[in-house]
């Protein structure tokens, strides 16, 4: 290396030092917050399925706060976690139970999101709280869905009301609620057939089920839970919109969070519809349903960082 190059390199070093924030001068190691760094942050954010909007917002905040400084990745993620935590902050969301008489919980969602398994878990949860449960197998459309829920009811040891294949789901819901009232059960959980939120007729069917239920218990359904597949991407937002419009969802059950999917789509959902996450499904056993807690969820979102 020639003398000139040496001088040039020396100057470059100085230039870097000069453009470094005084607070970071004495840090042993760290990263300069430049476009490459912000790009990496953006990639990590997008990979949680939170969507381009929130990811851009958070990246820009990091840019404003740290631009040109040398920081540790962990500094940046402390800020990110705080921000996401704020976005998801919600008061504790225990299930709302009716003051008197049975509590009716309706469970809705797209095909294959995990409704039936979530209902089995929910029933187990209620049973563990020494509440009596009646299940209503109102998914009369999908082949053998009734059988699937029946198997679960036997395993858990709860009552179930079923109907013939392709019979009117509202009539099954009606009979389930009637049985719950008659036997003075604590909880009545109604399963519904999976449907895409764009299928207008099927969405109207949900309204009909609600009308029928309300005819017996005016305050019912007390909870309408949307089961969301944690692997879902931005279509989750559309699901939340469609099901909230048609069935007035009160909360989300985030199913299948035990895989590699992060379920970050609940962030834009929370932003746009104020729909809280109530439970999280974390496994295949009936006990694998936990009450949603923001902090561990956010930690898991960025676990690999």
């Amino acid at each position, binding site marked *: 290396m020639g003398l000139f190059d040496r001088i040039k390199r020396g100057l470059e070093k100085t230039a870097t030092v000069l453009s470094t924030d005084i607070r970071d001068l004495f840090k042993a190691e760290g990263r300069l917050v430049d476009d490459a760094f912000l790009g990496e942050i953006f990639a990590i954010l997008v990979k949680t399925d939170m969507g381009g909007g929130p990811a851009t917002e958070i990246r820009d905040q990091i840019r404003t706060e740290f631009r040109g400084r040398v920081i540790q990745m962990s500094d940046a993620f402390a800020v990110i976690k705080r921000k996401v935590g704020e976005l998801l902050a919600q008061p504790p969301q225990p299930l709302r139970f009716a003051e008197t008489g049975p509590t009716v919980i309706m469970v809705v969602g797209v*095909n*294959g999101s*995990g409704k039936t398994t979530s209902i089995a878990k929910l029933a187990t949860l209620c049973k563990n709280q020494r509440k009596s449960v009646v299940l209503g197998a109102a998914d009369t459309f999908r082949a*053998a869905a009734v059988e699937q829920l029946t198997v679960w009811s036997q395993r858990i040891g709860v009552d179930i009301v079923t109907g013939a294949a392709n019979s009117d789901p509202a009539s099954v819901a009606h009979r389930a609620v009637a049985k719950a009232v008659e036997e003075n059960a604590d909880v009545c959980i109604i399963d519904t057939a999976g449907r895409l939120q764009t299928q207008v007729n099927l969405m109207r069917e949900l309204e009909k089920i609600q009308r029928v239920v309300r005819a017996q218990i005016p305050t019912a359904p007390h909870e309408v839970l949307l089961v969301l*597949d944690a692997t879902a991407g931005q279509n989750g937002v*559309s699901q939340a919109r469609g099901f909230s419009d048609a069935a007035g969802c009160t909360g989300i059950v985030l199913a299948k969070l035990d*895989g590699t999917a992060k379920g970050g789509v609940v962030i834009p959902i929370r932003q746009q519809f104020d729909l809280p996450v109530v439970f999280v499904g974390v496994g295949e056993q009936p006990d694998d349903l936990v009450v949603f807690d923001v902090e561990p969820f956010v930690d898991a979102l960025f676990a690999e960082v």
Partner: protein
Amino acid sequence: MFESLNDGLTAAFKTLRGKGKLTEANMRDGLALVERSLLEADVSYQVVQDFMAAVGEKAMGQKVMLALDPSEHLVGIVRDELVEILGPVDPSFDLRGDVTTLMLCGLQGSGKTTSCGKLARLLLNSKARPMLVAADLQRPAAIDQLHVLGEQLGIPVYSDRETKDPVKVCQDAVRRARDEGADVVILDTAGRLAIDQELMDELSRIDKRVGPDQCFLVVDGMTGQDAVNSAQAFNEALELDGVIMTKLDGDARGGALLSVKHVTGVPIKFIGTGEQLEALEPFRPEGMAERILGLGDILGLVHTAQQIVDEKEQQELQQRMEEGSFSLEDFKGVLTKFSQPGLMKKMVGLMPGMGGLTDMMDQADADGDVKRLVGIVDSMTPDERRRPKLIDASRRSRIARGAGVEMGQVTDLIKQFNTMAPIMQSMAGKGPLARMQAVKELQHSGMLDPGAQAPRVKKGTGKRMSPRQRAQAKKQRDKALRRQRRSLRGRNAGG
């Protein structure tokens, strides 16, 4: 399908359109919007990066400045690149010899069992004799579900409720296939999580010991960024031969397909577009890419139309369209043909730029509407059907009473007809390429903005000019133009 992505991209290209020249700067904006759009469509971050890099590189190398319509230039590049990633396709089952074994695998709830049924239906259509095998021993009642499907299809289903070993079930089933008179065996395996090593091992045991001829990965069309991870895991555990993407009848953007293709590199075979067993279509990358880009898929439109209308009928229809004598009666005929569940919306969705219209149809409940529309046409006199212009307020109220609808709905139908008729006429009697062109023209004219009025189709004036007359007319036009320009220039200089 794909409207959401469509809408995003349409917006992106609108910002490019009308700017005249495609400069490096405004291309960067356009590309950034495409990138954002792809991310919103759930294409994996890494795949988006690679894609944008490839598109950027190609666009930079070309003389986009000289292109007549730079935005179209970029559309072309983006489209070609999408097609390249998604293709090539091969919707064949590659049935060979005695008994062909197909194996379906995928995450829980991705739609494996339903896809098994749909595949069987497709095979039945091509005169094969499929048999379903219940190798999902995990999910309660999965065996029952497959039996119900088998009954609906009238095909044998093999299951063994005694054993807990899916490998044994599959081996026994393949051995039994010949006795059952089946020549294709479809294995419905248990859904699993990508990170569940034990279950993945079980799957690769089936793969090794049973040796299926084809192994398809079933992917939920609504999958997000995780598609990369799960596809990776299945790709490592198994020798995949193809991909089936399900639940594309909703508003899912389906960007996960790009990710899965990128990771596995195997052809995408079919897409699921509805709850009925018939709703499984061969995958076409051009269609997908063009749908994504808002160009629609005329070829798909033609293809579907050919399936519905028989050849003779089609020729008659074509002739009437060309003559411009396409009447409400014909409109009704077409509507009735399309009134099988879900088809109407699918057809309109295939039309380029009609994303907005399918939204409208969603609200309007397309399939139920067809019956009402047919009722309205039935309440008209033959004269009215031929010449809807005849229908004044009193006729309208009579028709509305007859069909049992509001008067506004009669008005809407006539409007709808007035919009559709010129489109059909302008596309009639042309090859696929000319049809594309016709639709492009329509797009430019702003016609495809739903709610806008339809352009009038040019009709012959009955006068044909000789080449000489034409040349003369052109000369005059040019002269007038020059004069106009000169006077404009003069005014500018003066002011």
